[in-house]
C-alpha cells in the first residue's frame, strides 16, 4: 500500500493562505489571552499547580448536587468555594476548589474544613480521590520554572540547529515551534481550559516533536541543495516537502493515533495533557510545511533583494 506517491504540490505558492491561516489562529489566541488577562490577570486559566489554592476531588455515592454542596460548605463557613462536576458527570465526581491562601501557615485548613462540611451538612457518603494544596510560594516558583523551561528548550534547539545546519535554519525552526506553542496555548485560552503542570510537559514535548518534523524537511532540503545547486530555491523546497510528505503524514498520523487513544482512554487526570498533544501534533505538522520551509525561502528572497549573497547556504555537511 502506498499513499502520497509522486505528489507534486506547489506548497510555496500557497504561502499567503498559510500566512492567513496562521495569523487568524494566532490573533484569535492572542485576543483571547488578552481577554483572560483583563479578567483574571493571567493569559490562560491556570490550574491549581500555578494558581495556588486548594482543590479536592470527591467521589460521592449518589449523584451529587452542586447547590447542596455549596449550602453545606457555606453552612460550615467556607466562602468562595468553586464547585464543578468532574469527568463528565457519570462518575459522581465533583471538584471543590478554594482560592489561594496567602497565609502559608493556614494553608492546610481548607481541606479539613471542606471534608468536615460535607460530612456534617451533606448527607451523601463520599471518598476523597485527590487533594492538591499549593501555596503561593510554590505556585509562583512553578510558574517561573515552566516559563524558563520552555525558553531554554527553544534556545537549546536553536543552538543545536545552528551547529548542525545554519543559523537561519535554526531561526526558521524556532519561529515555527514558537508559532505552534502560541496557537496551542491560544486554543486553551479560547476553550477556557486550564493549563496545569502536565500541560506544560505536553507543550515541551510538542516543541521537540514539531522540531522533529521540521528537521526531516530541512534535512531533505540540505541534501537536495548539495545535489542540485542550480535549481531555484522555491522549486527545490517544494520538491523536498513533497519527497518527505508521505513520511510526514504517516508518522504524524501514527503519533496522532496514539495520542488520540490517550485522549480517549487515558482518563480525566491526563485530559489536558493529551488534549494539548492532540492539538499540538496537528499544528506541529502543519507548521513544518507551512511556516518553517517558506521562511527559509522568504529569507533568501529578502537577501537577494537587498543585494547580498544569492543562494541559501548549503549547510554544513552532515557528520553523523
Amino acid at each position, binding site marked *: *500500500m*502506498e499513499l502520497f506517491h509522486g505528489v507534486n504540490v506547489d506548497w510555496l505558492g500557497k504561502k499567503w493562505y498559510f500566512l492567513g491561516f496562521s495569523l487568524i489562529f494566532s490573533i484569535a489566541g492572542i485576543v483571547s489571552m488578552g481577554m483572560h488577562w483583563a479578567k483574571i490577570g493571567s493569559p490562560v486559566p491556570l490550574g491549581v499547580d500555578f494558581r495556588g489554592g486548594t482543590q479536592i476531588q470527591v467521589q460521592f455515592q449518589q449523584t451529587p448536587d452542586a447547590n447542596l454542596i455549596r449550602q453545606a460548605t457555606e453552612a460550615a463557613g467556607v466562602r468562595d468555594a468553586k464547585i464543578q462536576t468532574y469527568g463528565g458527570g457519570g462518575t459522581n465526581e465533583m471538584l471543590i476548589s478554594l482560592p489561594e491562601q496567602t497565609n*502559608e*501557615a493556614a*494553608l*492546610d485548613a481548607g481541606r*479539613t474544613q471542606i471534608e468536615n462540611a460535607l460530612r456534617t451538612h451533606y448527607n451523601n457518603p463520599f*471518598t*476523597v*480521590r*485527590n*487533594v492538591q*494544596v*499549593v*501555596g503561593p510560594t*510554590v505556585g509562583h*516558583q512553578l510558574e517561573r520554572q*515552566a516559563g524558563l*523551561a520552555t525558553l*531554554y*528548550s527553544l534556545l*537549546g*534547539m536553536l543552538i*543545536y*540547529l545552528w551547529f*548542525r545546519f545554519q543559523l537561519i535554519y535554526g531561526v526558521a525552526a524556532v519561529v515555527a515551534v514558537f508559532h505552534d506553542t502560541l496557537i496551542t496555548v491560544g486554543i486553551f485560552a479560547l476553550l477556557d481550559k486550564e493549563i496545569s503542570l*502536565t500541560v*506544560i*510537559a505536553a507543550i*515541551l*514535548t510538542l*516543541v*521537540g*516533536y514539531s*522540531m*522533529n518534523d521540521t*528537521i*526531516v524537511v530541512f*534535512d531533505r532540503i540540505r541534501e537536495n541543495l548539495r545535489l542540485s545547486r542550480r535549481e531555484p530555491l522555491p522549486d527545490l523546497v517544494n520538491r523536498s516537502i513533497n519527497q518527505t510528505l508521505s*513520511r510526514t503524514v*504517516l*508518522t504524524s498520523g*501514527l*503519533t*496522532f*493515533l*496514539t*495520542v488520540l*487513544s*490517550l485522549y*480517549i*482512554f*487515558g*482518563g480525566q*487526570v*491526563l485530559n489536558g*495533557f*493529551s488534549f494539548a*498533544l492532540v492539538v499540538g501534533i496537528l499544528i506541529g505538522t502543519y507548521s513544518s510545511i507551512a511556516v518553517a520551509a517558506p521562511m527559509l525561502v522568504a529569507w533568501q528572497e529578502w537577501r537577494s533583494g537587498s543585494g547580498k549573497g544569492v543562494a541559501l547556504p548549503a549547510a554544513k555537511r552532515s557528520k*553523523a
Partner: protein
Amino acid sequence: MKKNLNSKIAAIVAVLVIFVYGIFGVPSGLSGKALLESMTRHIHLGLDLRGGAHLILQVVVSEAVSAETDNTVARIQQDLKAANLTFSQIYKPDPAKPEVIRIEGTSPAQASAVRSLLDNKYSGEYDVTGGGGDGSFVVTMKPLVETALEEKTVQQAIETIRDRVDTLGVSEPVIQEYGLGKDEILVELPGISDLDRVKAIIQSTARLEIHAVVGGPYQDEQAALGSVGGTLPPDEELVHGSGALATGSDADSVYVLQRVSIVAGSDFRSADPGTDQNGLRNVRFTLTNEAGDKFYDYTSANVGHSMAVVLGGRVKEVANIKSAIRDSGEITGSFSADEVEILSKMLRTGALPASLNYLEDRTVGASLGADSIKEGVTAAVVGVLVVMAFMLVYYKSSGINADLALLLNLVILLGFMGFSGATLTLPGIAGVILTIGMGVDSNVLIFERIREEIRAGKAASAAVDQGFAHAWTTIFDTHVTTIVSAGILFLFGTGPVKGFAVTLTFGLAANLFTAVYVSRVIFEAHLNRMKPGQMVSI
C-alpha cells in the same frame, strides 16, 4: 557474513533477555498474576499510581537562628555580669533580623574591656562593631555561620521527620531536601491517603519548651502589658494559653514569660504517655544529662517560682517549683488522648529544630491510582495495537520487522525502568505511549527511503543499505532535539512530570537501537534467505 549475522542476532537476544529480567526479575511463577506481581516489584510506581501523599514542607530556619541568638544574649549577659561590666540592656532590635544583637548602656570607661571580652569569646561566630561614645555594641552573626546553622537545621528537621515517619510504619517513604529553596523538604508517603493524623505527627510544629513565668495569668494582653508597666522588656514575651490546671478554667489567658527557655525541645531524651494519681493524662519525660544539670541549677535556685510548659506557642501548664528537679519529671496538662500520644512520640524522636510550613500537599487516593493504571494501560495497549496493525497493512512483510522492533523497544524501555529504579508515573505511561508513536517514526523514515531507492531502480540489498544510510542523519537529529526538550523537562519538572521526561528519554534512546540496529539485522537475515533478483516486501 553469515557468521557475523548470527553473532548480531545473539547480541539482540541477549539484550532482550537482560531487559526482560529488568522487568520481571525471576518471577515466582508464569501465571499472569505472578508476572504482574514481580513486575510491580521491579518497576517503582509513582504516588499518582499507587496512591499516597506528597508534601513539600518549609523549615522556618529563622526560628533556629533566633533561638541561637537568644542563647547568645543570655550568655553575653552572664559573661558581662561575671566580669563586672555594666550595661543597661541586651536585646535583639529587629524581629525580622534575628541575627542582630544590640548591647546598650555600657560605661565609656569600660568600652575596651567589653570590646575585648566580646572579641575573645564571640568573634568566632559573630561580628562585633560599635563601642563608640554612645556605649552601644552591635553583635551580628556571621553570614557563613548563619548559613551553616540553617543547613544544619534543615538536616535535623529531615532526620526528625524520618524518625517520626518510621514510627508510622509507612513503606518506602521519601524524605529529602527539595531543590528549589534551601529550606524546603519533600516528603512522600506511599499508600497514605488519610493525612490528618500523619500531619499531626510529622508537623507537631509543636516545640515543647519550659519557660520561667514572670507574671500571669492575665485576662488579656492589655492587662498583661499593664503588669510590666506598659512596655514589654525585650527579654520577655507574652504567650497565650489555657492553663486549665492552674486556673481551673478553660478560658484563654495571657502569661508574661522569660523569652529564653529553661528547657528546649532538643533537651528531651525520652518521653512516655501515662496518667497521674488523679487519673489525668500526663507525659513523663527524661532530660539529657547536660540539660538535666541546667534544669537542676535553675530549679534549685528558683524554688517557689512558677514555670510554664509551652507547646506549639501556647501555655499548656503552669507548675510551681516545689523542689529541685534534675532530669526527670512529668507534665500534666489539659491534653487529649491523641495529644499525649503525639506529644510523647514527638519528644522521643527529638523535637523539630524549627517549625514547619506546608507549601504543597498532593494526595492521591488509592482508588484513583488504580483507575489511572487501568486507563493508562488501556490507552497504551490500544495505541500499540493500532500502530502495529497499520504498519502491517502499509508495509506488508516489512511491517513485521517494524512491529518486532517496536515490541523490543517497549521491553527495553520497561526493563530500563526496572534497572534504574526510576519511577513510573501516569504521565510516564503517557511517555511510553508517545514513544510508540515517535519511535515508529524512525521505521517510517527508513522504509520510505528504501521505497524511494527501489523506485530509483536499486537492487534489494543496495536499497536497504542506502535507505538506512540516508535516514540515519535525520533520525539522529530528530532524536537529539526531542531528548533535549525531555532533558530540560527533567531538570525543571517535579514528580509526575519528571516521570514523563524519564520514560520519553529512555524510550527514544532505546529506539535508536531497535529501529536502526535491530531492524537492520532483521532485514539482513531476510535478505540472506532471498533468491537473487527477488525484491523485499515493503
